[in-house]
């Protein structure tokens, strides 16, 4: 309002519907942008946190079930590894489906292709590793093959995600997963599972923590 008591141009429109002042309008624009973005985007810290816990628990159990001094039964480790990974995958796909509901267009198509790239790539790796195992690959190498190829595939997919969404943290996580995959093979069994649990799961959790911190930072 001006000092004369007359509203400056555009400040108010008597009789107009949903009448607002410029201050209110600008605040509304910022608030609405923030709210809508929050409801359209997946909760990335939740997704990465779930994968972090899945790797920590699943591969941690695999490590503890290995060898003669195992503290966790083999069957329990297999069940845990399967359940936590399926749970994290369900959460990821559920988030993507819910946030993208009712929207169609180029960005949804790209997101959909990226989401499907995960099961497709992992199915390919699964087929190759299974075929090698069936062809007589020694048990020791079989274990290293699974951990190395799985982590490296995940790494490549995060590199792709980083490029697709222009997200350096995603890209950095991809590099970290490639290092983790390679390190797991060098560690040898059962250390490969410990590397996946601690470095892999830890990498996910650090990335989740970064997104959570960045999201709460006041916008500049």
């Amino acid at each position: 309002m001006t000092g004369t008591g007359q509203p400056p141009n555009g400040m108010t429109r008597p009789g107009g519907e949903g009448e607002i002042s410029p201050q209110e309008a600008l605040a509304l624009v910022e608030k609405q942008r923030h709210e809508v973005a929050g409801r359209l985007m997946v909760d990335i810290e939740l997704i990465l946190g779930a994968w972090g816990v899945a790797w920590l628990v699943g591969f941690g159990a695999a490590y503890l079930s290995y060898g003669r001094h195992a503290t966790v039964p083999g069957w329990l480790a297999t069940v845990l590894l399967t359940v936590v990974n399926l749970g994290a995958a369900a959460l990821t796909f559920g988030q993507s489906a819910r946030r993208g509901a009712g929207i169609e267009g180029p960005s949804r198509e790209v997101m959909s292709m990226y989401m499907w790239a995960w099961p497709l790539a992992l199915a390919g790796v699964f087929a190759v590793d299974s075929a090698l195992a069936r062809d007589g690959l020694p048990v020791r190498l079989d274990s290293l093959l699974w951990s190395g190829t799985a982590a490296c595939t995940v790494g490549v997919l995060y590199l792709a995600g980083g490029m697709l969404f222009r997200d350096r943290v995603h890209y950095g996580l991809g590099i970290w997963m490639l290092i983790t995959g390679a390190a797991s093979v060098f560690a040898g069994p059962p250390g490969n599972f410990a590397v996946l649990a601690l470095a892999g799961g830890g990498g996910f959790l650090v990335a989740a923590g970064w997104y959570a911190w960045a999201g709460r930072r006041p916008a500049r």
Partner: protein
Amino acid sequence: MVRLGRQAAGPVTQDRVLPELDPVIHSQPRLRVTVALAALGDGDRITFPRLQELVGMTSGNLATHLRKLEDAGYITITKTYRRRTPVSYVELTRTGQRALEDYTAALRLLLAPPGGQAHEKQGEPGS
């Protein structure tokens, strides 16, 4: 920057011309709808029920405001069928996108301190 054409120019204060605010967008419900549509990816469109959920309006109210935005050329509404069910998709047009950008720029200009522009023009340190 706000384009201040003849129609867009408002009253002159001590040192500047205040811009007119676009009456189509300068309404709380239509502003919410326009901002929500602008948050979608380029070329993306949204169904009526999902947009309704995002902006928290009744369907009658939303339909009324969408009609006004459509009349102004700011949005397009496409009616189609999906699995034999009628679906309406709403999309922000380039004109609508530009109108929102001009509107927010006009708001910032209106709310800027009166001396702000003069300082910028003089190129004083810190500007």
